[in-house]
């Protein structure tokens, strides 16, 4: 890939070396955050299994907040860093912006750690209004302020990064070209790499998500000054932001697969009319699908609830028919180079698909009535995160690490790593799904008598997480080594 970037004529060798270095720094940072945040998740399941019964529940909720926000943020920056690197072949993202965002992200992470582990701020990652202002003596006002300061810093930095990548795309492609409109009308034009198409769609959506976050934070400030805000409006804005952020993280991961998997399959994956239509549909549908987070707010107009279900269902079309089928068609009977990276890409698309199936099922209003805020919810989003975009990003870091270090992988170790991640990961996920089916609520530090089976499921999940962590450690050892060597 880097050879292709060098051949593009867009970069000097010195510039390219600096960008590679920055990408490695991002990659290593993601690899450092992964085990820490995973251990926080481990702690949560251990707490739910009764292992820390002497510890106050406030710790669970604080760790929950840090783990969830930390993971959402880590994989977002992982996706963005990966896509930035892959875009080097086609255009010129700005290195200074990447560095600036890196520093801002680190600062945001430090502040988040301070307010959660230091201040016991425990609202969960979507800080639903007005909960941050109802601490009940658990967290102090400084923790609330620090939390919003962290969100503001992260939001500003990530918005700037988004704008810069969009600017980089705009330097080489008109808006119509970047969205593949010439394919829609059948006009010949410059070839549009799928990476650029999906990135453009994702960045436009993420801009809208960040604006929603700014409005939410501004309205929290209004409430702090004594003026009420409509809680239903806040809920709509909060889930619009969260839904967008999580989805475009995944779409950027899918973009990386579109770009990198072809080289392993020995076949091209090009944009065509179908791909352009699919991602145009995603751009529209993803703006309305977020209503599925508010089905249980009966005060929301019924037509909006139904619109949410229809858009959520229809989003399965571009995902399933184009991206997933495209992956399968690309790999089918190909002279496939099965490495850790390509395996992770392939399995990541599968995980995204399985999580998507669970998500579509839960986006049925009638079903959501019984699944909303049970363990089915973390089941589906952990599936398309942990077994989806996380695998893809880890596959990318491995790919970049091999490319830049020159160190080959050990096939036996790769197979063992993959097996541990798959068995540990899907086993851990299954306990979430089974918990949801059996009415176990999500986000409970301790399970009461009515849902006491949740404690048993947590214990079983702990066993699987142990395998998962072993797999992560093996991966970190191998890939981390390569990245550090490439950086040196």
């Amino acid at each position, binding site marked *: 890939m880097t050879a292709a970037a*060098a051949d593009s*004529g*867009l*970069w*000097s*060798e010195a510039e390219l070396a600096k960008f590679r270095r920055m990408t490695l720094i991002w990659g290593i940072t993601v690899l450092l955050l992964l085990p820490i945040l995973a251990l926080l998740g481990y702690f949560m399941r251990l707490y739910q299994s009764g292992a820390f019964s002497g510890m106050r529940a406030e710790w669970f909720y604080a760790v929950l907040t840090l783990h969830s926000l930390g993971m959402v943020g880590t994989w977002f920056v992982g996706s963005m860093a990966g896509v930035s690197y892959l875009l080097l072949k086609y255009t*010129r993202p*700005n290195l*200074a*912006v990447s560095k600036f965002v890196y520093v801002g992200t680190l600062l945001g992470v430090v502040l988040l750690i301070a307010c959660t582990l230091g201040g016991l701020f425990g609202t969960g990652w979507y800080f639903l209004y007005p909960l941050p202002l109802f601490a009940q003596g658990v967290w102090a006002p400084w923790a609330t302020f620090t939390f919003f300061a962290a969100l503001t810093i992260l939001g500003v930095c990530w918005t700037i990064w988004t*704008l*810069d990548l*969009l*600017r980089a795309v*705009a*330097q*080489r*492609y*008109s*808006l119509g070209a*970047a969205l593949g409109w010439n394919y829609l009308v059948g006009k010949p034009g*410059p070839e549009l790499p799928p990476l650029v198409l999906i990135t453009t769609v994702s960045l*436009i*959506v993420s*801009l*809208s*998500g960040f*604006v*929603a976050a700014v*409005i939410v934070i*501004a*309205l929290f400030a*209004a409430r702090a*000054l*004594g*003026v*009420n*805000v*409509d809680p*239903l*409006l806040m809920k*709509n*804005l909060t889930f*619009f*932001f969260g839904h967008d952020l999580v989805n475009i993280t995944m779409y950027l991961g899918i973009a990386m697969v579109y770009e990198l998997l072809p080289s392993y399959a020995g076949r091209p994956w090009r944009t065509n009319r179908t791909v352009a239509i699919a991602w145009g549909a995603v751009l529209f549908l993803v*703006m309305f699908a977020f209503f599925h987070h508010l089905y249980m707010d*009966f*005060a929301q107009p019924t037509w909006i609830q139904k619109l949410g279900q229809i858009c959520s269902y229809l989003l399965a079309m571009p995902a399933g028919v184009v991206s997933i089928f495209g992956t399968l068609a690309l790999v089918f009977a190909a002279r496939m180079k099965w490495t850790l990276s390509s395996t992770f890409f392939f399995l990541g698309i599968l995980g995204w698909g399985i999580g998507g199936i669970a998500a579509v099922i839960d986006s049925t209003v009638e079903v959501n009535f019984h699944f909303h805020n049970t363990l089915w919810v973390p089941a589906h989003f952990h599936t398309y995160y942990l077994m989806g975009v996380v695998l893809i990003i880890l596959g990318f870091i491995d790919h970049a690490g091999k490319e830049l270090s020159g160190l080959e992988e050990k096939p036996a170790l790769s197979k063992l790593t993959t097996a541990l991640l798959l068995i540990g990961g899907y086993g851990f996920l299954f306990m979430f799904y089974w918990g949801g089916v059996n009415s176990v609520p999500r986000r409970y530090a301790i399970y009461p008598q009515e849902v006491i089976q949740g404690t048993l499921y947590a214990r079983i999940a702990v066993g699987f997480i142990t395998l998962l962590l072993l797999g992560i450690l093996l991966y970190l050892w191998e890939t981390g080594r390569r990245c550090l060597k490439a950086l040196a």
Partner: protein
Amino acid sequence: MHKTGPQSRHRLPFRWSFRAACVAFFAFSVFIFVRVAFAQDSFGQPSQEPPNEERFVYKLTPDVPITTSSGVQNLSAIWHEKPVLLTMIFSRCARVCSPFLRSLNSAVSDAGGLGTDYRIVVLSFDPKDTLADMQRLASELGLNADPDWTFGVASPSDIRSLAAATGFWFQWDSSTQQFDHASLVVAIDRGQLVRMLAGPSVPAASLREVVQELRGKFVASYALAGKVAFRCFEYDPTSGRYSLDWGLALMLLPGTCAILATAWVFFLLPASRKKRNLI
């Protein structure tokens, strides 16, 4: 290998655009500040809360026979066709009854739905009232020819059971030779009481809410204490209507900003205008 473009590409490319973004953000902050600073005190409870509505809501109404100009019929013959607004008065009333019925008529004209969503039944709880007395009362109010207003009488025992089930009370006061009684109109849907409005008059806004409920909808929001700066839709109890509020603009803002920012990046940034030579 060659460098493309001038040295300026290495600086942050947003120099003048950054200023524009700062101005936009400042304008947004001023808008929020002004909206918050001048936020109105929110309205009180949308309708006058009847004293005991909760004791009667969804209770079954006795299906008693009544005598009207159409002959003797059960109340269910009327509420099976349409929901019913039921009230009880007496024709010799020298105080609130006629003003109450006039205000109900006025509220009905304002709220609408008579004949399509509901009909009105006016019964007398005075054992001495006859059908002719009620028809005379209807004539005085100009309602005798209106097919959606039904004036009638029933037996004293039936009136008592109806009153007990719907919250009406009445008591003869020999000193004034008048009945002391509740001023009340209840909404009955398929034989079940769904709403109750009490008071000497019937505000149009309250009746509008009742009509909504008879249509299967209800006002889901209520006022929070203190000022409220943003809602998507604001319910105005004085008019009984919803109106758009600034909250809806806030919901549309993210998508609008994304479109504007995209247009700005692709069409306005100087570097973008020099593009496409490279393709």
